[in-house]
């Protein structure tokens, strides 16, 4: 899935939760208030959109710190699905 599409989904989740959309991909997730629940929802929405389950690399998952990491990770996971 295209990175820009994943970014739009992420923004939609943040806005729904009453937070600001992402302006800088280098923003840390904890500064954004983007929690594991939000990440799970985003990954689920990526799966639904692509109509296939994503497979996660646990080591890569642990390295996620910023918005860019999330986008990279899901872009890669959806490509591999």
């Amino acid at each position, binding site marked *: 899935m295209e990175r820009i599409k994943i970014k739009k989904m992420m923004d939609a989740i943040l806005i*729904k*939760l009453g937070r600001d959309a992402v302006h800088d991909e280098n923003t840390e997730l904890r500064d954004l208030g983007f929690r594991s*629940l939000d990440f*799970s929802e985003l990954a*689920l929405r990526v799966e*639904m959109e692509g109509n296939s389950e994503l497979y996660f690399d646990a080591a890569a*998952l642990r390295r996620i710190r910023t918005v860019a990491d999330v986008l990279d990770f899901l872009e890669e996971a959806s490509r591999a699905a």
Partner: protein
Amino acid sequence: MRRNTHWDNRLWTVGGYRNWCELADLFEPHVKQYDIEFATHRVAYVVSNHLEALIVVAGALRHDLDFMVIPLERCSTPMEQRLALAGFSVYVVCDNLFVSTVAVKGEPGRITLITSGTTGEPKFVEHSWLSINTFDRVKPGAKYDWIVPYQVGTYAWFQMVALSISVSEQGLIPMSTNDLTHLFEEAVIAGASAISSTPTFWRMAFMQIEESLIRRIRLRQITLGGEVVDQKILDALRMQYPMARVSHIFASSEVGACIVVNDGLAGFPAKLLQHDDTRTWQIRIDQGELWVRSRYAASDVIDWINTGDLVTHNGDRIFFVGRSDQTMINIGGNKAYPGDIERLLLSHPNLIWCRVYAHKAPLLGYLAAADVCLRPGCEITEAEKILTQYCEIHLPDYAVPRIWQFLDNIPVTDNLKAELKCVQNRTCSAR
């Protein structure tokens, strides 16, 4: 037979038939039509309308048959196979024809009901007239003509038939629920004064029908059952029909009808937990689940039965909070309860109906998901944000639904109950 005496001189005000004997007489050609041996067999009568169904019930009761009635639309090939496995010969009333025969002797007086299938495949539940007829101790009261929206052959439908047979001046107005506006228009014309239905029926009505039409029916008795009745629906009915008594009944095909509440409040008084020999039923709570013992229970229920309904004690009131088989969503190790989430959502003024369920999700295992119907006129574009933020105020973060579907109509079973939803897989499409 003792039960024959029940249906003398009881009025059925619709269709021109003056009493149940008259209906039973109409059944006689069918009895003569088939081999006399089959009259002693277990027979499923397939009917194409309510009148046929009533004729079958009246005639089958007269002859003490072992029977069930099933509407034509439910009699699919898999259903016919299930009927055959259960030992039923299948007779299509409008064709005067057995479409399948099984040489299984019947048990005189056994009546088999078919459930609505809210939680899965419809079940067959065995009763007798004595267990179906919960009105045998009811004294004659006000005259009512009842709208009967239930599907033929279900427990709720049989309850209405039993009411009409057993209590004087209780007319039945069987109606299709395919078009609710038409139903309400016809009910006005027929002069309906009472209705038995589900909360889902009313939620659909409030979504689909002009308020002026809703108020044109002069209802004096509204009975709710089949689902949990919340305060919001009770208050809405009270507002639309200030002259009506609104009752809600706890009943199921297995335990029969028991708790009846008339005080306009959700739940039921805790004092009903006290043993009372004058009642035909007793209830108790064991580990949060409601147990019932009733003389009107299904034939194979001989003692206490676990209803599977979870209840909570709050002051002097007992409230239903969900089903034990669908109670918990494990969200990354945190437990969320669909019943709690649904109750909160239903308290939102924009919402008319909802159901909450587990949706499989990456990393955390499950997320809470909600299907909702908004009140007419509410804007859908902002609804997800509004409802999410409403939940965030009142619920722990993990319990806030993450996947929302906004439905135009409440998904219902054929017997007017909202369909329940099981766990959704990860790749199911949703909004």
